């Protein structure tokens, strides 16, 4: 049942907290709904994970927290958890009859902020608002000033309403207050920023591109929201927005890092959540290639580990391997042939990025999910529809360290996104293509040329609308109807954020790549001349007649950013999605 969506009611927090409950058991759904209503929360229920995701995407800002069962027929609860984390950055609580430690651990690792055992008591539900608040505060903490103020604001509200201060973590409150004192003058800003924040900046591909560029320029180590903001030169963007985005980016990276732990590589690309590990293994070029200094980027094949993440955001320019993120050496991952044409350059960039901190977040404090999705809505790239990139054995991307030269190998741009649904058809096509691409890539210097060969099917969102939801939708669509013709409907296309150039590449269709405008151009490849190529490339993509090739390249880039892959992948299917799009 769906309740009307109301706008965030911060004043009444946590009264009216908007909860989305997902459970295939109708009895529990009914009980939970009743319990939550008794807590004065606004409840929406649904029994399918997919439905839940589409609800969440439709209303980016429509919910505060999600409660989901672990065992569901259409999608594994953990996967849903990851998606939500990536795309929407909402706190998610898992539920299950099974309280086995390993399961609970898995939940936490996937980003659940709590794990409840059934039968659930009402008092457990009463306190879920703490997760929402905590998340907000955490977001605020990393941001210099503004968000903290907002956190304070929230705390104030909460404190006003609840005398029971035990709900508020004392230390948080204190630290928040302290900062408040220091930044009193920012109160005014706060008012502005708070509203801006509420508006939820949508980090379009373009915007994200600028962000990444700025970060790279500054140097990941020295990066700070203010510097980034200054460099980005986006008038309407606030420091708060940037700070928040930066935090998410970091978390995202760290999360990826964590997941690819053994590999210590910066896996740029999508990570498969579950199957990832399996696929990922080979996929990630995790080999400290990232660690390699920029020049190494050459072969960074971004391999996506298939998961939803496109962690392409390799911010660091210097390729510092602090994070040990390896930009997937494509060489190492045979599968990874990231067919991303466009994304290549960006990816390369990623490889260069040095992830300073997040890389090893051993424990993202449960932030992983937060990271990914932290701005799910903002990150178009987060939305990764179940795309599986199948990379054949070839090192697809040679990302040059300086990006300037657009690695000719770009052709592999074809990111093969294998949507689960239509994987078979596409995969096969893709595989072949990949190989071709790989070879072609290596030999091709001009990207454009490559591009032409590659069929980049990017489904860039035709409507560059900013609604994340739109993206989500597209994402969903991708998941749901992945058909060879619309391969490009992958998140890329869906990314609303990808607004500048709604690049939409449709497989086989003459994709409107041409729509890629400078934004995209600049966006995609910040530094290299790639963009130009890209643009051409993109346009050329549709030329590829190879239906099999599904490259999300350009869109990937975008997508990477907003990668919110909703992989419903079949773990065994997708190797790695090389979505180094998270061009942070």
């Amino acid at each position: 049942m769906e309740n009307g969506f109301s706008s965030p009611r911060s004043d009444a927090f946590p009264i009216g907290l908007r909860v989305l409950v997902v459970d295939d058991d109708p009895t529990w759904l009914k009980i939970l709904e009743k319990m939550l209503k008794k807590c004065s929360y606004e409840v929406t229920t649904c029994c399918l994970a997919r439905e839940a995701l589409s609800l969440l995407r439709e209303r980016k800002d429509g919910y505060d927290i999600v409660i989901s069962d672990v065992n569901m027929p259409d999608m594994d609860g953990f996967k849903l958890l990851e998606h939500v984390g990536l795309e929407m950055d909402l706190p998610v609580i898992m539920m299950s009859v099974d309280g086995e430690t390993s399961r609970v651990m898995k939940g936490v690792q996937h980003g659940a902020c709590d794990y409840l055992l059934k039968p659930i008591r009402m008092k457990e539900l009463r306190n879920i608002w703490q997760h929402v608040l905590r998340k907000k505060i955490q977001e605020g903490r990393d941001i210099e000033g503004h968000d903290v103020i907002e956190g304070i604001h929230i705390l104030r509200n909460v404190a006003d309403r609840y005398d029971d201060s035990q709900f508020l973590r004392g230390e948080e409150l204190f630290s928040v207050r302290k900062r408040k004192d220091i930044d009193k003058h920012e109160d005014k800003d706060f008012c502005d920023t708070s509203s801006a924040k509420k508006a939820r900046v949508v980090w379009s591909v373009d915007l994200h591109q600028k962000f990444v560029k700025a970060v790279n320029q500054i140097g990941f180590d020295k990066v700070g929201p203010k510097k980034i903001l200054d460099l980005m030169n986006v008038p309407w963007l606030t420091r708060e927005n940037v700070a928040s985005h930066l935090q998410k980016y970091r978390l995202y990276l760290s999360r990826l890092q964590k997941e690819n732990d053994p590999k210590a590589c910066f896996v740029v690309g999508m990570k498969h959540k579950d199957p990832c590990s399996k696929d990922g293994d080979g996929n990630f070029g995790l080999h400290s290639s990232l660690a390699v200094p920029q020049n190494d980027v050459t072969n960074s094949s971004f391999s996506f580990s298939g998961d939803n993440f496109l962690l392409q955001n390799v911010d660091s320019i210097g390729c510092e391997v602090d994070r040990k993120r390896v930009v997937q050496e494509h060489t190492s991952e045979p599968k990874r042939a990231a067919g991303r044409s466009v994304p290549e350059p960006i990816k390369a960039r990623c490889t260069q990025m040095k992830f300073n901190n997040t890389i090893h977040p051993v424990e993202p404090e449960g932030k992983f999910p937060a990271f990914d999705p932290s701005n799910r809505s903002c990150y178009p790239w987060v939305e990764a529809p179940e795309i599986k990139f199948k990379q054949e054995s070839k090192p697809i991307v040679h990302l040059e360290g300086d990006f300037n030269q657009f690695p000719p190998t770009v052709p592999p741009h074809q990111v093969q996104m294998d949507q689960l649904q239509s994987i078979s058809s596409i995969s096969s096509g893709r595989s072949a293509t990949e190989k071709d691409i790989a070879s072609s890539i290596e030999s091709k210097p001009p990207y454009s040329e490559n591009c032409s060969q590659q069929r980049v099917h990017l489904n860039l969102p035709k409507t560059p609308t900013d609604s994340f939801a739109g993206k989500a939708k597209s994402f969903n669509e991708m998941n749901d109807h992945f058909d060879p013709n619309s391969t490009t409907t992958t998140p890329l296309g869906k990314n609303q954020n990808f607004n500048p150039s709604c690049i939409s590449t449709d497989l086989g269709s003459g994709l409107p790549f041409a729509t890629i405008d400078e934004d995209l151009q600049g966006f995609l490849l910040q530094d290299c001349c790639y963009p130009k190529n890209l643009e051409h490339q993109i346009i050329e993509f549709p030329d590829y007649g190879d239906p099999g090739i599904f490259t999300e390249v350009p869109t990937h880039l975008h997508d990477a950013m907003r990668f919110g892959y909703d992989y419903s992948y079949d773990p065994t299917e997708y190797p790695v999605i090389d979505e180094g799009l998270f061009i942070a």
Partner: protein
Amino acid sequence: MERNQLLRQMNSMRQSFFDQGFLDEQFVQLEELQDEANPNFVEEVVTLCYRDSYRLILNLEQALQKSPLDFNQLDRYMQQFMGSSSSIGAKKVNAQCTLFREYIKAGSGEGCLRTFHQLKKEHTTLEKKFEAYFQIKRQAGPSQIASRPK
């Protein structure tokens, strides 16, 4: 008064659920959720639960007829069933479920079958008790909310 008698009867039936170990604390939670907006909440939930659980029992039966037994599938079904029966606090049924899962872990198909039969019996017994209880409850009057035992 007849009403009082009904009420007494209802209460004693209710109490017997707990005393005889058929239901546990979860059931009390459900009762506490019942209010003016949902005066028949408990009955609705129980009805819903049983409807769903019969479907799950069928799944289990079919799975148990396979040869060889697919323990993973059995476990999945049983988890679903447990989720459902735990929602109403069906204590005895849940105990059988737990036992069933133990047998799954042990890989004992024989144990699973035996437990399953027992489970079905408990399931049906409880259902009958519920039917009788709700009938009296309805007769006693809609505004009656059973008093909490402890």
